[in-house]
């Protein structure tokens, strides 16, 4: 701070942030000399809460970590617990999970696209993107009764089997979706104003990204084809065909292109998942972590006792520790669980991609104009609820 510079608060509330973020900018005219992000406004202590809950009760907390990609958070958490308990999930459940995770990725990217374009002055993409996102929210609502916080996955499988409506609505969505993405691209991809606002802005090269731990579309836009769906396949992703889009420049424009292409790929994967949906069980019914079927409670005292035990006390995984990560819409989302053999986690740590990616913000905006800050924050695609947990 010197006599010539001006200190300016961007936020705590700003349209380009999903949640509360304050960035203290030091400006020389319109140029950013330095910046200091101030986070923690939302901190709800989810990791602390998890230590006093059973493994099942934590699922609803994971929804609230990142409300734009709740199902990805559900998935990362249940996979970690399943690894800890050594549970094999039936193939049908894995396919449904993949379909849901990919629809969630599209929904998240759509919200990002609409609001990001809006931040930079383009109004129409927001209306278009939210129209398609509504269709996805409807699918989640029909399935689980909830639009933002589905909590639909369970340790060992799903909360319920899907019905025919789900398959039909995913098919209807994917039938038209590629054409809709064409529409967004018509508005933006070759638009000279869009290019001027995004090309060469917020550049981070591959080396910088890796040193900063940045993952997801930001890393791929710098030319690193790292995607955990390929690098460490989970939930049967190795059975699906898809490309991993990458960029070259590592700027805001390439991040845009990477996410646009990812939406197309996600639609392809979701389609493959419903078209090839295997028949069979949708939950690992023999496992001690899985609730018995409702029907069983009426006829079997053993089933009733197991149900009661799971509700009142919870499952008891063996002592040990696991880390499991998935490719969420924002990057590597990992859960690290330490178990002491009791019914509650001794420690549950979330590795949130937004928290780590946000750390690159200062590097990206130093020396740029104030107007670029908004473009860069938008392109990080942060969800502050995930940053603060």
């Amino acid at each position, binding site marked *: 701070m010197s006599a010539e510079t001006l200190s300016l608060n961007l936020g705590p509330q700003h349209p380009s942030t999903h949640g509360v973020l304050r960035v203290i900018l030091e400006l020389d005219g319109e140029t950013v000399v330095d910046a200091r992000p101030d986070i923690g406004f939302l901190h709800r202590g989810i990791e*602390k809460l998890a230590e006093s809950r059973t493994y099942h009760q934590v699922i609803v907390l994971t929804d609230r970590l990142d409300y734009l990609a709740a199902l990805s958070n559900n998935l990362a958490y249940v996979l970690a617990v399943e690894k800890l308990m050594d549970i094999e999930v039936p193939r049908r459940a894995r396919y449904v999970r993949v379909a849901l995770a990919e629809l969630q990725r599209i929904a998240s990217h759509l919200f990002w696209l609409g609001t990001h374009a809006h931040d930079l002055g383009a109004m129409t993409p927001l209306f278009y993107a939210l129209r398609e996102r509504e269709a996805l929210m409807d699918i989640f609502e029909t399935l689980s009764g909830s639009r933002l916080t589905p909590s639909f996955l369970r340790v060992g499988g799903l909360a319920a089997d899907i019905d025919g409506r789900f398959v039909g609505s995913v098919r209807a969505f994917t039938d038209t979706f590629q054409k809709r993405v064409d529409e967004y691209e018509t508005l933006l991809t070759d638009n000279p104003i869009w290019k001027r606002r995004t090309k060469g802005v917020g550049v981070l090269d591959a080396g910088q990204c890796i040193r*900063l731990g940045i993952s997801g579309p930001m890393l791929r836009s710098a030319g690193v084809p790292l995607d955990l769906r390929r690098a*460490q396949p989970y939930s049967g992703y190795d059975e699906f065909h898809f490309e991993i889009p990458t960029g070259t420049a590592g700027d805001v424009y390439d991040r845009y292109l990477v996410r646009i292409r990812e939406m197309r790929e996600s639609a392809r994967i979701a389609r493959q998942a419903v078209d090839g949906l295997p028949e069979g069980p949708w939950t690992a019914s023999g496992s001690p972590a899985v609730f018995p079927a409702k029907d069983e409670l009426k006829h079997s005292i053993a089933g009733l006792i197991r149900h009661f035990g799971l509700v009142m006390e919870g499952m008891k995984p063996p002592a040990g*520790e696991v880390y499991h990560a998935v490719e969420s819409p924002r990057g590597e989302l990992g859960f690290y669980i330490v178990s002491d053999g009791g019914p509650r986690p*001794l420690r549950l740590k979330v*590795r949130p991609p937004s928290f780590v990616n946000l750390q690159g913000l200062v590097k990206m905006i130093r020396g740029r104009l104030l107007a670029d800050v908004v473009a860069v924050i938008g392109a990080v695609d942060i969800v502050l609820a995930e940053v603060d947990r």
Partner: protein
Amino acid sequence: MNLDALRARFGTALGEPATFRGETTLTVDRNILVALCECLRDDEALAFDFLADLCGVDRHPAAPRFEVVYHLYSVRHGHRLRVKVALEEEDPVIDSVTGVWETADWHERECFDLFGIRFRNHPDLRRILLPDDFEGHPLRKDFPLEGTDRT
């Protein structure tokens, strides 16, 4: 992943690698942490260039009470490793790895904020999620779930 070269260099400061559910954990002495991390990053065969996560664990009332856990990933080889350092309750101090992986900056601040573990040589060690005047470290097991302001 072959860890024999590390054993030759660091000897007994390096614990026996433990494997659980296909994940390898290396428990090490805090005195060799930075040298070990540099080795893990620079060795061609290991190439752990990506620090995925860093966090604290409180095992209260067991001793040693704290652990600092590092989750490493190699972008080139696609393998993972967990490194753990145990810390005594009276002396929760450890060297910072910000010089090895830049990303450790915020992670270490968070660990300091929530567990009260101090990182020596960290460039800017202050609270990150909680206000500067907050008292206590909420992820410690003896910090009440309801907070300290309710009796």
